[in-house]
């Protein structure tokens, strides 16, 4: 799969709910269509990130396995389901 990661969020060593909250922060900082990679070593992250992407309309492109427990979650920012008031 070819893509360019716009923002890498390193949440290795931070425990639940740390990584998901770091991802939320990262997603807020990029534009629709851009890509965030979240690095996490928390075993709970996979299920949580998948569920969150489904609910929030962001696309989980790939889960990479790095050394040890570290996983990389590659996420493409989706179109917001509802427009914000000020937009």
């Amino acid at each position, binding site marked *: 799969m070819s893509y360019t990661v716009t923002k890498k969020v390193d949440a290795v060593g*931070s*425990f*639940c*709910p*740390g990584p*998901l*909250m770091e991802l*939320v922060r990262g*997603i*807020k900082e990029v534009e629709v269509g851009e890509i965030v990679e979240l690095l996490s070593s928390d075993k709970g992250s996979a299920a*949580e990130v998948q*569920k*969150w992407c489904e*609910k*929030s*309309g962001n696309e989980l492109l790939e889960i990479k396995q790095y050394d040890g427990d570290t996983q990389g979650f590659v996420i493409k920012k989706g179109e*917001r*389901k*509802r427009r*914000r*008031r*000020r937009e």
Partner: protein
Amino acid sequence: MSNNTVNVVILGAGTGGTIVANKLNKKLKKTKKPFQLTVIDPSFKHVYQPGFLFTMFKKDKTHSIVKDGKKLLPKNTNMIEEKVKKVETKDKVVITESGTKVPYDYLVIATGAKLSPEKVDWWDDSLYHYYSPEAADRLSEKIENFREGKIIIAIGEIPYKCPPAPIEGALLLDDYFKKKGIRDKVEIQYCSPLDRAFSIKTVNEVIEPIMNEKGIEVETFFNVDDVDTEEKVLYSLEGSDLDYDLLIMIPPHTGQPFLHESGIAGKSGWVPTDRETLRVQDQENMYALGDTTDIPTSKAGSTAHYEAPIIAENIYKDIIGDTNLTKYDGHVQCFFLTEFGKSLFIDFNFEHPPKPGKPSRFWWWFKLFFKPFYFRAVAKGLV
């Protein structure tokens, strides 16, 4: 060390700073070396923050949860009533807003968390919360006069102080309106940024069913994105929008800005702290405790209480040349109020998640007893 006197400077006289000052005072006496303990705080108003959950319902008075912090410190403490502006870490000097320079041999950072609503573009000062004495008082008027409609409690951003407090607020609102006989006219909704109401799974397994039973609607994966205070609509990053009549919004938190400006902390202001030795990373003779650290545990008074003796011990050991540092194991104990008259008790550390029992009257009474006990014994470092 100037004139052989050991200068220990503590920034902040809240829960962590006060307990550590009292514990250190005893330990430093044991070194038999001359020492000077200095505490710097802009007001020395010591706030017992768990009391906000009572003042917001007018079940306690603000003056009984805010005490003169100077009276809780050792008498021999040099107390400087000023805001810290900067720490010159190379020269080991603290600079206050008026320009006073306070040199240190050991520095303890205990400046807590700052409520930083300006961090988000959607904050509006008309929003209600109960994370400061004034805000809890303002909310108490609103709650007292609330007759019908929908109340939402939402989290501005993670991390925030005392993770149970927003859910406790929702549970106590339920009981308050039940006792007033108008619960059927008041809808209560709790918005969680996570896929469950409470972050710690074992506690959530007890708490979320209680919320369901009491008819408190839990909206999960709700990360606040915007608020329209005129139309009274709350928007999430996940694409939900919720109407409300009263919105209680926990404000975003940061560390104190001078920590970033002094090069001690990153932009968020949370101090990078070794979770075992409580030493500040990449700094010499510097420790941190309480809400200001970046340690992945609850920002709670209880955390600061269990961290304080570790810092006192480690500074003492450093002075006497003992290199075997004492380690913090992540111990935290918390009450979790479920109604006026019942509470859970949770106890955990880095290795062992909490195993909460059931809410009981016993822990409720213990919680009520804890406030006078806090001012008489806990803050003074007696326990």
